């Protein structure tokens, strides 16, 4: 049996609607200035190159007294500026700042937005929800088909010591750049898509390198109100081309207010905790001796989930200092007819933003009646049961442990004098005993 749901797909690009009429086009360019071989030769885009510094997560906020300069975050300015430029050029389907929004009274402060335009003019489409990993399909819409004007800049890491910016840099076809593009149906100001190595046409599937790129973006932006999210297939991703989403919302998300309880600290210094008192059960990852420690533990967890065919959502919050992971089962329930019609009628698709507490509502009555109770009721349906989560956690921990064992072994082999391996099964490393790392 194939499980599928019908939903209105989100239009993320102005070229998405033409999908159906797509025919074979010719080599001199398809006339749309897209990102495929027909239009790429000679194409240029701004390039932001960050430094892969390999230091502790985000001491970015504090500025060097040497440097004199207060923190001005270049990436933040670049993104906001380019986005506003596209807004003034009229590339979006609506002005998201004209959509009413509010914080719902209550303990958590769920956020509601009334967005009547987002799903207009699109017919519901069938989405398969029982396979988290599906092969890339060239015939479906993918981000190589967006217009170049929808792409804001190229984003890459270099070994240099300084951030570099090139306002007009050729697109290196052989090196498949990662790019940041607008979402033409934004759910908040600055809504963009980060598409790792776009020309490689990777399917929606986390790998270590791509996740690290996303984490770097959060660190580089250095703005706690700029968060990145990821939806796996089966957890409300609609496009099977690897992408992360991000936008600005200068208020805390309810998930960020939820308390947590530490389960363990990995040998790499990554603290893993249970999320408490929140309708969707999940894990929080934070810390890590280096950014890569944090990144690898999270991406290994994601890889474990997708390989076990468990749909999930990820939120990168707090400038990359906290990462939330939610395995979920809503789409499956929906496909099996186990979700009440009352919830289905709201047409809220519980993807990463909704799970984090930002609810985009399509009907005025839902917006006006939005309450913490309603939000809670919807999100409770998204969550795995306590028992199921326990099983899933065991899978995850097993995966992380194995990887760590391997890494320690290879590290020891590479540099025996330097690394004294901690006991392999002692996940609960002597955290408090490590010399503290503070910006000096």
């Amino acid at each position: 049996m194939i499980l599928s749901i019908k939903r209105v797909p989100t239009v993320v690009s102005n070229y998405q609607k033409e999908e159906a009429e797509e025919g074979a086009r010719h080599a001199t360019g398809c006339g749309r200035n897209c990102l495929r071989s027909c239009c790429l030769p000679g194409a240029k885009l701004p390039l932001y190159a960050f430094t892969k510094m390999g230091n502790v997560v985000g001491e970015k906020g504090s500025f060097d007294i040497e440097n004199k300069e207060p923190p001005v975050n270049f990436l933040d300015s670049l993104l906001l500026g380019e986005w506003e430029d596209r807004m003034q050029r009229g590339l979006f389907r609506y002005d998201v700042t004209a959509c009413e929004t509010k914080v719902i009274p209550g303990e958590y402060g769920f956020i509601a937005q009334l967005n009547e335009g987002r799903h207009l003019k699109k017919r519901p489409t069938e989405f398969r929800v029982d396979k988290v990993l599906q092969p890339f399909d060239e015939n479906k819409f993918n981000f190589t088909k967006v217009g170049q004007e929808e792409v804001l800049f190229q984003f890459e890491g270099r070994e240099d010591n300084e951030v570099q910016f090139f306002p007009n840099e050729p697109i290196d076809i052989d090196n498949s750049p990662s790019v940041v593009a607008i979402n033409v149906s934004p759910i908040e100001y600055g809504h963009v898509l980060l598409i790792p190595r776009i020309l490689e046409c990777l399917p929606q599937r986390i790998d270590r390198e791509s996740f690290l790129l996303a984490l770097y973006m959060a660190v580089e932006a250095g703005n706690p109100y700029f968060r990145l999210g990821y939806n796996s297939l089966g957890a409300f991703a609609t496009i099977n081309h690897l992408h992360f989403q991000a936008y600005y919302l200068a208020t805390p998300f309810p998930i960020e207010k939820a308390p947590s309880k530490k389960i363990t600290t990995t040998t790499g210094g990554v603290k893993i905790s249970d999320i408490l008192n929140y309708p969707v059960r999940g894990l929080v990852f934070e810390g890590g001796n280096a950014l890569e420690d944090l990144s690898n533990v999270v991406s290994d967890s994601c890889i474990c989930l997708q390989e076990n065919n468990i749909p999930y959502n990820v939120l990168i919050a707090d400038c990359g200092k906290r990462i939330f992971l939610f395995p979920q089962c809503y789409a499956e329930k929906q496909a099996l007819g186990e979700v009440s019609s009352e919830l289905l009628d709201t047409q809220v698709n519980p993807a990463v933003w909704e799970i984090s507490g930002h609810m985009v509502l399509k009907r005025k009555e839902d917006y006006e009646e939005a309450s913490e109770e309603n939000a809670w009721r919807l999100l409770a349906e998204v969550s795995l049961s306590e028992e199921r989560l326990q099983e899933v956690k065991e899978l995850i921990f097993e995966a992380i442990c194995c990887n760590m064992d391997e890494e320690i072994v290879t590290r020891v082999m590479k540099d025996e004098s330097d690394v004294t391996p901690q006991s392999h099964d002692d996940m609960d490393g002597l955290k408090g005993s490590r010399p503290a790392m503070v910006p000096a």
Partner: protein
Amino acid sequence: MEPQLGFIEKSFDLRYSDLVREALDELPDCFTITDPCICGHPIVFASKGFLKMVGYSKDEVIGRNGRIFQGPETDRRSVMEIREAIREEKAIEISLLNYRKDGTPFWMLFQMCPVFSKEDGRVINFVGVQVPILRKLRLSGNGIVRSEMSLREAGNGAREILFRCCRSEVCSDSILELGHASCLESVSSNDDREFDINEPCEASELEKTKASTAISNILSVLTHYSELTGKLVCRKRYCLSGNRQLGASLNICLGRIKQSFVLTDALLPDMPIVYASEGFLKLTGYSRHEVLGRNCRFLSGTDTDPTAQFQMKECIQYQQACTVRILNYRKDRTSFWNFLHISPVRNASGKVAFFVGIQIDDHCKNHETNSLSPEMQQLSVVGAVKVAVRSLSMGASTS
């Protein structure tokens, strides 16, 4: 470095006179005072007790943001609560793990409150008091060995030492450090004592009272010295109406933007300026109180082209963005070509509540090839302002 520090301290002295530092130095407590109107929200005053406690010199602390005392084990949720309290201009009390310069962590009770200008209700400073909290020591697996209780039972003497550790005379060998030393020992053998710095730490009533008392004392000093300069401050703000309150609160969100820009209130007659950035004051030579409440047309003068003015007027009327090049005048009546971008800004209800205007002195419009173009910089300010206004007006601030 010097001019920067000088500038940072000057704004403080201007409001409270140069005498205020001496008076504050007489208070025994650990505290810092910040200025949210300066880019990066830096510390502008740090008490001797505080410097002693964290092990930094004054110059290492002034001009920097309080977050430099945080480290890997500092609870991010608590940091978020502080961030939100600042954004909402509210007081907060919270236990927080901080680090000294030498990297050793310690728990403290952090109390913070805003200080308002009596004149216009804007936040002028934040005062933060840091009271060290005594931690429990644990034997791994075996429960508490030396608890806070047992120390407390050891008599007031023990607690006295702790309190005094933030006064100048006693410090380095306080109980806190001893505790930490024994935790370092435990590293060698796993079954020894372990000091789990991770564990959340509750302050006692005594510590809370100490913090509140310190805040009151600092505020009375600040209030007193602000009377000397006539720029009065107070602990409670008087209520402003909706949009004006918003305009005042934008300070903190927009403070880190260096460009010259103003916000004007679209809901008030004749669109008065409700926010002027540091960059704007520098560019035009006016001081803040001279421009707040006025329409931007005072920048125009005899040789200003009326068609440019008309163009702006029209854009504003149709709530559209526009860019003009217009001859403007500084306070000293010297003129400059203003490359000006204006854009409407909507609030959370989706209504245009402000206009933002970003000025670039056309003469200084030198564009380094590897930075954002002046046009892009203007647009990024528009973006930042839109995000700030939208979010700040979403209302229903939560607990």
